[in-house]
């Protein structure tokens, strides 16, 4: 899937092809080839007005269909009359200089050369032979041609390649030496260099099938699956974030693991396609089959607040159409979104018929500022998780038993406790500024009597154990609006005491304007029962936020107190639950500015957060903070009141409430309850850690699909409802009606494109460019494949072998074509820079991932471990932060332990800020599907290899291996060089390296402090056993080696 446009590539490649094709045209006797010589001209100059797009079609004829082009136009003229140039209107118009007649018309920028018109004229004169576009006709298996150099043929691939070479008097280059081959194979099949033992073993293996056995060994290595998956991740636009705006994290690594395993298990390609596109719809779909469908959930999902649902629902589906058609069909179906396709026979209606296959996912268009995976998701537990959860559940059971025992034991002591409480007085000396719902004190300010009475009237009220209560129902929930009752001014300080009995968590009290940067104050019980206190000037950059560790229970009366000292920094906020100050975590401590807002004080709600449902009682607000003693006294005073008020006539509920608080006051009980709570929290947390992955899932009721006028989401043409089907161009006798059938149709063997597209992608892994150089486009505008028959032969062979992926790789790499040396004359590189003729072996820079993996492997740092969540390697500080907005992700944390040195396919992919060295080496940002990468050669690459900690540390590690190997400088550099290239340096190279080492030793000897610095780069420490000067000098030499063109290049 990688193709090269080297520095000089494009021009010379083009010139070569042009030279070949023009020379063919130059000679009158050479036959013209419709697809090579004519079709591209029609596409470039004519299709815009006389092509597949009905909306822009002029003159009533089209040049993409034979009968129309040869038929009568609206004008009554015949555009093309085979064999008769004079009556072919097309030629007259193309030759015309009359602005009213000339074609293409004068306003069109693109103009054919007169040589191109000559070609068309000659083609018409010769009878205008017409061929359907090759890629739209199913391949027939060509017979491999007979070649003169038959002794070079290792398998049929070679016959096609040699045949073409022989036609221009060339031949295959000699086979590469064995060292080059073992390195090439290892890099190609596993993405890693060979270990020196492997090189030695292969060199020593004199058996006839040594090469084939090496191939089999590499194909069987688990590294193979990782390497193959790397390319697939680009195609599937796999990433670890959702890709829009704040670009929140998501978790799709289970899908990545699936891909690696599929390659390693050699899953047939047809199954690979079906499970990824529609595994969820297979009968009795397994967990793995569902995970596989993450392929089409890897698209970006919009979470930007305020975005419009319908718009992004459409974009999700469009992305799936584009990805699916590009990856499996090599078609640019997306071009027909707004109008009929300009070049390929795909109408706008057909686009939406294809769209309909993917328009049934049970998803939303916009997930408003949502972090993490979004539905539909699948939780996938492992046996370890199950075990841990089981153990916790057992612990919880025994903790509950202890609690039950204590219940019984404590009951007797309650009478004494009540008597003691009743006879005490815990009144506090500070007058509340506000007093509501409290029978012991008059309502303050008195004018609120009315408000409270009215609110109580219209709301359900629980029995008033600790004071009169106000209730909040879920249905028609309304906050109690207390107006500008109190300021909650952090710069002065205040306290709030109240009793709550929640049935659903929400804000107890708030005075906050969410529209104004959330300025204000709230006490908000989160959905897990922990209490948040916010003091905000401007969220999130200027605010205090704390969260309690302890939770407020549902359906129990609980005394809650929040006391805030000026200036409202996190340590100034004290929360007490049932009279005890509780532990809290600080989420934000940046408040600097007023918390005053004009928004009214609300009971039971804050802005858009979920409403508080339940009861609130005995609300007191103080215009100064309260200390711990005062808070506890207020709690006890409430208890005392409840006991006294209910003497003799205690209801069951009142009794239960009082018993509950009596028990909380007993240390043993409190501790037992606390430990039960801790266990339960742990269980919830563990359950939340069960990894999930996003999957496809059909809606029960299919969504209606319409043609969208001009492709606009808000312009459905309700007169044109469409149902899922495939474009007519496939002339298929099957009409897949849903996603599963679509997937099956793709791989049913009759499809003209699927196998060609797949083998072309695989081919490009090895040769740097596909047989068709545009893997993303097999349509009528695609260039000619370099070896059309070979492409078709490979496609039919792939299907014939049951879509055996490993067999296909084996076929390619065991060919003589692949085994050629990549060394060639300057002329060879200049006339054929992209190696389209295959007259030499492949030589090109490694893909981004392999550049890093290769250095880690050479230096012995690489950690091999398959699968799991993504990892974060070295990355310069601040890259995320400098682009992140207010809701960005937490700072980038470099991986700890050996995750730091794992393979690059596991690198955390943040789409809006991709890892810089991946980008520098032409890695894909994974925002949209890509089946090819550019391959550039830039100074930024040099800077990365020279200076990035990754490579400096690798150099140091390679230096240590070299020093361990021998005390002799020459032997050291020889080893380092061989680890990096698999070969020994020649005398010339060894001379340079040895001299280099000498000079570095001199340099560092005179600057030992630099040596000490040099060996400290990276996290892994250098062993103290090395002499710093020697290690530093060797590190510099190792860095030279790691920077060699050969080392980052497959030869």
């Amino acid at each position, binding site marked *: 899937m990688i193709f090269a446009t*080297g520095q*000089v590539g494009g021009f010379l490649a083009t010139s070569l092809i042009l030279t070949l094709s023009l020379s063919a045209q130059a000679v009158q006797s050479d036959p013209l080839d419709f697809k090579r010589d004519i079709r591209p001209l029609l596409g470039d100059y004519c299709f815009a007005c006389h092509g597949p797009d009905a909306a822009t079609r002029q003159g009533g004829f089209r040049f993409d269909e034979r009968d129309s082009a040869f038929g009568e136009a609206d004008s009554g003229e015949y555009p093309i009359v085979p064999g008769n140039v004079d009556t072919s209107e097309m030629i007259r118009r193309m030759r015309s200089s009359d602005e009213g007649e000339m074609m293409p018309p004068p306003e069109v920028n693109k103009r054919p050369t007169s040589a191109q018109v000559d070609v068309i004229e000659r083609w018409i004169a010769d009878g205008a032979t017409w061929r359907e576009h090759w890629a739209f006709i199913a391949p027939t298996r060509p017979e491999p041609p007979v070649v003169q150099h038959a002794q070079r043929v290792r398998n049929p691939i070679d016959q096609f390649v040699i045949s073409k070479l022989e036609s221009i008097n060339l031949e295959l280059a000699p086979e590469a030496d064995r060292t080059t081959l073992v390195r090439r194979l290892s890099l190609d099949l596993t993405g890693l260099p060979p270990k020196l033992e492997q090189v030695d073993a292969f060199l020593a293996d004199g058996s006839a099938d040594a090469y084939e056995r090496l191939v089999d060994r590499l194909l069987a290595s688990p590294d193979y699956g990782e390497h193959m998956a790397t390319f697939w991740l680009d195609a599937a636009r796999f990433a670890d974030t959702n890709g*829009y*705006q*704040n670009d929140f994290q998501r978790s799709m690594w289970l899908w990545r693991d699936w891909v690696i395993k599929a390659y390693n298990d050699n899953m047939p390609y047809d199954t690979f396609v079906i499970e990824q596109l529609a595994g969820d719809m297979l009968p009795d779909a397994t967990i793995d089959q569902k995970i596989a469908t993450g392929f089409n959930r890897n698209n970006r999902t919009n979470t*930007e607040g*305020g975005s*419009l649902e319908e718009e992004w629902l459409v974009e999700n589906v469009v992305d799936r159409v584009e990805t699916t058609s590009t990856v499996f069909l090599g078609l*640019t179906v997306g*071009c027909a979104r707004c109008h009929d396709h*300009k*070049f*390929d026979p795909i109408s706008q209606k057909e686009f939406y018929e294809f769209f309909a296959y993917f328009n049934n996912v049970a998803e939303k268009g916009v997930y408003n500022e949502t972090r993490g995976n979004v539905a539909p998701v699948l939780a996938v537990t492992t046996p370890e998780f199950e075990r841990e959860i089981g153990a916790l559940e057992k612990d919880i059971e025994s903790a509950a038993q202890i609690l039950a025992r204590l219940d019984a034991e404590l009951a007797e002591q309650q009478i004494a406790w009540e008597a003691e409480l009743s006879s005490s007085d815990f009144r506090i000396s500070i007058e509340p500024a506000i007093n509501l719902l409290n029978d012991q004190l008059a309502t303050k300010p008195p004018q609120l009597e009315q408000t409270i009475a009215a609110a109580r009237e219209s709301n359900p009220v629980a029995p008033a154990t600790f004071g009169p209560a106000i209730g909040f129902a879920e249905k028609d929930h309304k906050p109690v609006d207390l107006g500008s009752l109190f300021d909650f001014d952090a710069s002065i300080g205040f306290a709030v005491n109240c009793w709550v009995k929640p049935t659903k968590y929400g804000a107890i009290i708030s005075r906050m*304007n969410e*529209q*104004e940067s959330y300025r204000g104050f709230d006490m908000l019980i989160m959905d897990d029962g922990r209490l948040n206190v916010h003091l905000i000037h401007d969220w*999130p950059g*200027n605010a205090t936020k704390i969260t309690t560790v302890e939770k407020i229970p549902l359906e129990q009366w609980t005394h809650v107190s929040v006391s805030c000292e000026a200036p409202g920094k996190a340590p100034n906020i004290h929360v007490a639950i049932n009279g005890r100050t509780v532990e809290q975590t600080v989420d934000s401590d940046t408040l600097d500015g007023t918390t005053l807002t004009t928004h009214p004080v609300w009971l039971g709600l804050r802005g858009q957060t979920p409403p508080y449902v339940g009861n609130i009682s005995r609300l007191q607000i103080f215009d100064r903070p309260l200390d711990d003693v005062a808070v506890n006294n207020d709690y006890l005073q409430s208890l005392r009141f409840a006991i006294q008020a209910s003497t003799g006539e205690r209801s069951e509920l009142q009794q239960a409430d009082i018993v509950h608080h009596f028990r909380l006051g007993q240390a043993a009980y409190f501790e037992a309850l606390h430990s039960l709570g801790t266990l339960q929290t742990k269980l919830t947390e563990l359950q939340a850690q069960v990894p999930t992955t996003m999957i496809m899932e059909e809606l029960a009721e299919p969504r209606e699909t319409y043609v969208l006028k001009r492709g606009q989401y808000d312009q459905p043409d309700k007169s044109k409802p469409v149902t899922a089907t495939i474009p007519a161009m496939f002339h298929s006798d099957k009409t897949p009606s849903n996603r599963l059938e679509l997937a099956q149709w793709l791989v049913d063997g009759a499809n003209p494109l699927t196998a060609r597209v797949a083998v072309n992608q695989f081919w490009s892994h090895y040769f740097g460019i596909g047989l068709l150089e545009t893997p*993303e486009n097999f*349509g*009528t505008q695609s260039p000619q494949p370099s070896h059309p028959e070979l492409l078709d032969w490979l496609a039919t062979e792939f299907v014939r072998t049951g879509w055996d992926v490993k067999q296909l790789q084996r076929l390619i790499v065991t060919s003589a074509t692949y085994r050629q040396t990549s*060394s*060639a004359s*300057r002329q060879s*590189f200049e006339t054929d820079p992209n190696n389209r003729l295959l007259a030499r072996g492949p*030589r090109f*820079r490694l893909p981004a991932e392999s550049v890093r993996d290769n250095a880690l492997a050479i230096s012995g740092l690489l950690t091999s471990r398959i699968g799991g969540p993504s990892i974060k390697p070295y990355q*310069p500080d*601040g890259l995320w932060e400098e*682009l992140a*907005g*207010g809701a*960005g992700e937490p700072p980038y944390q470099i991986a700890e332990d050996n995750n730091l040195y794992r393979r690059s396919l596991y690198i955390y992919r943040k*789409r*809006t800020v991709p890892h810089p060295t991946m*980008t*520098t080496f*032409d890695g894909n940002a994974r925002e949209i599907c890509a089946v090819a990468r*550019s391959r*550039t*050669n*830039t*100074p930024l690459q040099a*800077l*990365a290899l020279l*200076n990035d*900690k990754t490579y400096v540390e690798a150099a140091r590690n390679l230096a240590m291996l070299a020093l361990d190997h021998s005390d002799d400088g020459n032997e050291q550099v020889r080893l380092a060089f061989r680890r990096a290239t698999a070969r020994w340096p020649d005398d010339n190279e060894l001379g340079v390296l040895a001299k*280099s080492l000498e000079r570095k030793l001199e*340099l560092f000897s005179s600057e030992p402090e630099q*040596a000490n*610095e*040099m060996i*400290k*780069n990276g996290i892994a420490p250098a062993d103290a056993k090395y002499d710093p000067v020697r290690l530093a000098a060797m590190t*510099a*030499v190792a860095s*030279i080696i790691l920077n*060699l*063109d050969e080392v980052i*290049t497959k030869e």
Partner: protein
Amino acid sequence: MFDLKQVQHFNRRQFMAGTGVGLGAMALGALNSRQAFANSMPELGLAGLPHHTPRAKRVIYMFQSGAPSQFETFDYKPNLLAIQKTELPDSIRMGQRITGMTSGQKNFLVAPSIFKFAQHGQSGAWISEVLPYTAKVADDLCIIKSMKTEAINHDPAITFCQTGFQLAGRPSIGAWLAYGLGSEADDLPSYVVMVSRGTGRTGDQPLYDRLWGSGFLPTKHQGVKFRSGTEPVLYLDNPAGCTTQLRRQMLDDVAELNTIRQAEVGDPEIQTRISQYEMAFRMQSSVPELTDISDEPEHILEMYGADVRIPGTYARNCLLARRLAERDVRFIQLFHMGWDHHNDLPEHLGKQCHDTDQASAALLTDLKQRGLLDDTLLVWGGEFGRTTYCQGDFTDTNYGRDHHPRNYSIWLAGGGVKPGLTYGETDDFSYNITANPVEVFDLNATILHQLGVDHERLTYRYQGRDYRLTDVHGKLVKDILL
């Protein structure tokens, strides 16, 4: 078919290759750096470009990310005062879509600017009091009040401005120019990006690498982000313990070994790599030299304002933009975050203007006094406008505004654009354009045009189609050109 530039390119390569061993050292001395650079980076541009004589050599695009309100900057709407806090008439809104942030709002009350406007300069341009420095250069500005866009949320809107498409995947404007025109700069990339964070709204909208990405163009054309820290370009600094002397030795050794290998295997790509290592080495001095402003005289620093002394600020980036312009970097783009004022607009917008006003005007003045304004096109603007109606709380001193794609204001200066012109009209509510609409495509087409590029002819074939920055749209805004 045969193109002179490519032949030159080719010959130069041949020449380089022919010199054989010791090229590393030679590139340092014998060849002048421009030649070596041209050989190493892509950077001759395409055949046939420029399409016509360029009016500007370079662009400095001061992108105000988050979308500044037109009401408080350049689009003076005095009639709103009389009808403030009344409902926006349906005849104006005409059922246009609004974002999910205000679509639930009960009413849409008209909010006039809290800031006063006055006419400035000979041209009499109306500019708000929060932009006093910009007002002083009014006669150099071409203010466009009738910009419009298609997107209503930040991510698609800013992506659209930069790439001509709301979704990811297309090349950014700077990448298109790098691809088409190559580089004029000796030792610097042709597309440089610098970001700064506004004080008006901390925790504002993010930016994304794709905004200066290369899309389907080769990745070498993407913008290079210059950072504010000690290492302006990623991995520019030698690692600890590596002196310049050692680095030079290492590069010579790498070049020598690569040259040996090249003789062996023949691949000219190795030659390119050798040149790129030399270019990297030169960047290690040219970039710090660029970002070190110690040679700037005091009066220049004062002109840009106090922030210029703090790395990473908008003011510093403006000064660096001038230094980059002097070194012929083709496309210099600043992004200043913090303009998304859904609430507290008077306070937040005031701070943003304070961040940017003086330095933007200083950059213009500084270029002018150096004779660089004539061939430097300045662009100042965001991704959309803001609503005439208030979002959230509405008091006499406070209000906010939601996103509004139907019209917004930007300004251009220099580079062959008419100075002292205010172009385009909007209705009394600044809700609809009443004269001379300018689409994002039109702006981009015009920017390209000033650099000598016909936006319809700068194409790249991908997916069988000739893609361009302006898709099938875009018309030159001739009215604003000299």
